[in-house]
């Protein structure tokens, strides 16, 4: 139901492509990231971490480090006798006056370990004779989910596909590593911290350090990526604060790339043994899946399965398997890329059993269409735009070593928001400050906060000063689950509308009318229908007087929505002599409710697709199966796509203003890898049921296919 807060029907700014407010600051280096923060007298912190995947700490000798040149603080993070559960588990730390001296001193900390049995992969942890490594068991069996009569479901099937599908572990690889700068003033702490949750970080600092939250001030103005791995100070933040307290000086502690790979989260692996049935006319009948995965040392590994499609009877069990590796953290649409891949590869295999077109087959087995379930429409639109009619049947008949194919996949996500507050000041000189304790984690939040205010006041974006990324600002939640836009934008809208009403109350008498007759548009405030009877924004604000208009507001129902759907098409070429896969085209169709900034929304989709190409073709956390140590904790052996690996990407956003604002940060990264894998299968006829699609795996699958098939 429309009310005064409702989004404008004919917006001037919303839904247009607006460049980031902070783009020029970022490209010229004026933007200060946590890494760029330098305080007078600042020291540098360095952590010492376990080199072993599982061990008991026998002794920690800090004495040599304490005497090293430039060292101002040294601490042990764990007690002697404690166990370290993964390579990279924090053990001790040091702060010194230069980075090099901190490094030198860290090398002088002598820790003796007693090595204990460890698991480097799920096979070792699941072995029947595996030693007890984790308290409470090396695995945790989840509850069985069951719907319908599975036996009857399989009885109806004309064909059954049975196979094992898997995705691998990747790390977040934030370009700006985790870390912070901590500075104490008595018992008050200021922390500049690379975080997705500025206010929640203050809360966590306070809890861990035993000080009131009111004594903690956290700041994050610019950030080089989080992807779900930066929701608090973590061990390095708390250690940084403790070092600063001990040294009585500010300390900067930023992790290096190896630490980043080992101890700041990852996407859990997922494996499922699946049996699924299909009728002769292409209706799904049954799904039976036993899945497992590892989120590292004692962490969960859940994911949705089956994904999206309507299996009338289904059964699923899941087991978390613990191995001695850094714990998983939420990673861009947690669980969905895994569940999507496991289901979508199966879907193409099922379609092939009855030689049915994969798009038609999917459309036939979708849940009912709804505003948050628009797949059928997107499949149709996408197939047309992508040239799906030119797709050949499985196996490119073209001669020569390069085979090309197309694949498709679908995804869903939530993206709802709530519980955000905001503050708006309008000064008598016409200036506007909008404050909200949300944060811009690289997604463009700063820009869309300004856009919503500017839209409401009928002003250009440049008229708005946006203040975010500071724990002293009005409450807003962490940026996870694609909730930021749907949380903060309603609060900004409500508060801006209320501030404008307060201004109208001041202006109305001068214009000889009632406040409710006024509108703000095009930089003027005037009587609705008669633009001549009004004042410029600046002149209107002169009527405010000495006390500025100062309004608090909060999130309200009706301005945001929940639930997104998307479909992606991929075209890939495979060199069957080398097994190298190149993605040549991606089409991503995505809805996100009301589009605030078309440009940053599209950027989210581009970024999501590129991240998923990395997941599909390049990234892979490799642990040595004997030593349990990561063999590629760097960016030389842990590969990401370069610019020449990024294909032509077309984004089709479906603007649905009637649904309100919905987050888009995560969904575009869900289905790309599955679409690519299906394209590789279409190109070559070889089914690769696990990621990543590394050349040696592709070539081996091709050899197997030549030798009589992969089934």
């Amino acid at each position, binding site marked *: 139901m429309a009310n005064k807060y409702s989004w404008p029907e004919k917006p001037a700014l919303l839904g247009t492509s607006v460049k980031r407010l902070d783009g020029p600051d970022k490209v010229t280096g004026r933007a200060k990231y946590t890494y760029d923060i330098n305080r007078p007298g600042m020291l540098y912190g360095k952590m010492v971490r376990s080199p072993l995947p599982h061990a008991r700490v026998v002794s920690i000798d800090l004495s040599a480090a304490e005497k090293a040149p430039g060292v101002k603080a040294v601490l042990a993070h764990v007690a002697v006798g404690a166990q370290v559960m993964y390579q990279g588990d924090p053990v001790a730390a040091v702060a010194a006056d230069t980075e090099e001296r901190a490094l030198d001193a860290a090398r002088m900390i002598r820790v003796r370990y007693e090595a204990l049995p460890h698991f480097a992969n799920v096979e070792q942890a699941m072995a029947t004779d595996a030693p007890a490594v984790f308290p409470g068991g090396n695995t945790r069996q989840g509850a069985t989910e069951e719907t319908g009569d599975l036996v009857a479901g399989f009885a109806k099937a004309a064909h059954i596909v049975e196979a094992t599908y898997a995705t691998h572990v990747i790390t977040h690889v934030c370009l700006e590593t985790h870390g912070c700068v901590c500075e104490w003033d008595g018992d008050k702490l200021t922390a500049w911290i690379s975080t997705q949750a500025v206010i929640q970080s203050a809360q966590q600092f306070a809890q861990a350090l035993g000080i009131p939250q009111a004594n903690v001030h956290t700041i994050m103005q610019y950030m080089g990526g989080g992807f779900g791995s930066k929701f608090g100070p973590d061990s390095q933040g708390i250690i940084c604060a403790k070092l600063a307290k001990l040294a009585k000086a500010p300390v900067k502690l930023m992790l290096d790339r190896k630490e980043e790979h080992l101890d700041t989260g990852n996407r859990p692996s997922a494996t499922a043994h699946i049996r699924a049935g299909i009728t002769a006319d292409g209706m799904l009948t049954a799904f039976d899946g036993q899945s497992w995965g590892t989120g590292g040392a004692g962490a969960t590994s859940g994911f949705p399965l089956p994904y999206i499609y309507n299996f009338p009877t289904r059964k699923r069990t899941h087991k978390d398997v613990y191995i001695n590796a850094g714990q998983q953290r939420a990673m861009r649409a947690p669980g969905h890329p895994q569940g999507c891949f496991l289901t979508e590869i199966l879907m193409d295999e099922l379609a092939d059993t009855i030689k049915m077109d994969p798009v038609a087959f999917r459309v036939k087995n979708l849940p009912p269409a709804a505003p948050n379930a628009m797949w059928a429409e997107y499949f149709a639109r996408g197939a047309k735009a992508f040239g799906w009619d030119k797709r050949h049947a499985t196996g490119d008949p073209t001669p020569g070593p390069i085979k090309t194919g197309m694949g498709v996949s679908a995804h869903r996500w939530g993206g709802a928001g709530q519980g955000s507050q905001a503050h708006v000041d309008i000064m008598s000189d016409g200036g506007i400050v909008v404050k909200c304790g949300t944060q811009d984690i690289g997604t463009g939040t700063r820009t869309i906060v300004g856009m919503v205010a500017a839209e409401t006041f009928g002003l250009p974006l440049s008229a708005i000063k946006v203040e975010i990324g500071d724990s002293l600002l009005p409450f807003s939640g962490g940026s996870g689950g694609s909730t930021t836009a749907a949380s903060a934008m309603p609060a900004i809208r409500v508060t801006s509308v209320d501030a404008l009403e307060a201004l109208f109350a001041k202006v109305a008498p001068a214009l000889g009318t009632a406040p409710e007759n006024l509108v703000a548009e095009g930089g003027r405030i005037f009587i609705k229908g008669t633009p001549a009877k009004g004042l410029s924004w600046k002149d209107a604000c002169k009527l405010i007087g000495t006390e500025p208009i100062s309004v608090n507001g909060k999130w309200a129902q009706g301005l945001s929505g929940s639930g997104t759907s998307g479909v992606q098409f991929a075209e890939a070429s495979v060199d069957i002599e080398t097994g190298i896969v190149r993605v040549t085209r991606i089409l991503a169709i995505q809805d996100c409710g009301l589009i605030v900034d078309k440009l940053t929304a599209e950027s989210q989709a581009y970024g999501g697709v590129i991240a998923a190409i990395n997941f599909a073709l390049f990234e892979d956390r*490799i642990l040595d199966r004997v030593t349990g140590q990561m*063999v590629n904790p760097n960016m030389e052996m842990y*590969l990401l796509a370069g610019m*020449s*690996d990024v294909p032509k990407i077309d984004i089709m956003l479906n603007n649905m203003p009637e649904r309100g604002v919905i987050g888009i940060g995560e969904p575009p990264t869900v289905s790309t890898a599955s679409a690519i894998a299906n394209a590789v299968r279409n190109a070559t006829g070889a089914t690769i049921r696990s990621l990543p699609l*590394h*050349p*040696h795996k592709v*070539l*081996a699958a091709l050899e197997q296919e030549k030798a009589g098939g992969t089934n």
Partner: protein
Amino acid sequence: MIGSLSHRTLLQPRSLTDALKMLRDEGPLVPLAGCTDLYVSLNFGTLKGTRFLNLWGLAGLKDISVRGDVLSIGALATHTDLIRSPLVQKRIPMLAAAAREVGGVQIQNRGTLGGNVANASPAGDTLPVLAAADAVVVLRSAAETRRVPFTTFYTGYRQSVRRLDELIVGFEIPAIHGRQWFRKVGTRAAQAISKVVIAGVAPAGRAGSVRVALGSVAPTVVRATRTEAALAGGATIGDAQRTLLEEIAPIDDIRSTSEYRRRVAANLLARFWADAHRK
């Protein structure tokens, strides 16, 4: 943990003579130029040397010229220099192709041909080209200059005949007759260390001989001489592939598997031979 820069010394010669004297009198020294490999070792904490000799300023070692029928390339010619050199493009295009595959633009600007050879990685992109080109390595010490065929330069994994008092000052490449072919196989399109790298020369008409050299398939870059002989003798490509697989001994490592390298080496041999005989 990242290596420490403390307690490391850098010597700065003003001339080649100066550098050779320092090597003789103040060794052992690790020569460095573009530092593109050295910094990787430093960051991985595996850099062993403590005393270094900076060659970067010795501009005389950058020359690329032709004397008689021999192309001379100074050891300090960067990959960018190779890519841009009309002489390299004309006489040994497979070297320009290999240089283009090295790292990214910044690495190409810093990394040198001499450094690529001195680093002695079996995965070095330019090494199979030098092997297939029958290049000669020019080594100089304060006492003498000696010329070593590239194919006998390496003695084992990351080992060569270069003595500690010698510098690689350049390469001499005789005229190459026939069609040149180069291919690097890496996971991504750029900035990836090779899984397999192969350079070949196929005779054109009566001129030239068959040459096949491979990187990343043995402890050093290798010339597949038996495979060459098989192809020259008119063997089927299948037989030549079987011979090649007897000649190479790739390993499993972080970048790939032995199995993969064997398959790809055999596939690329066939590709090279097919391309060479395409009209």
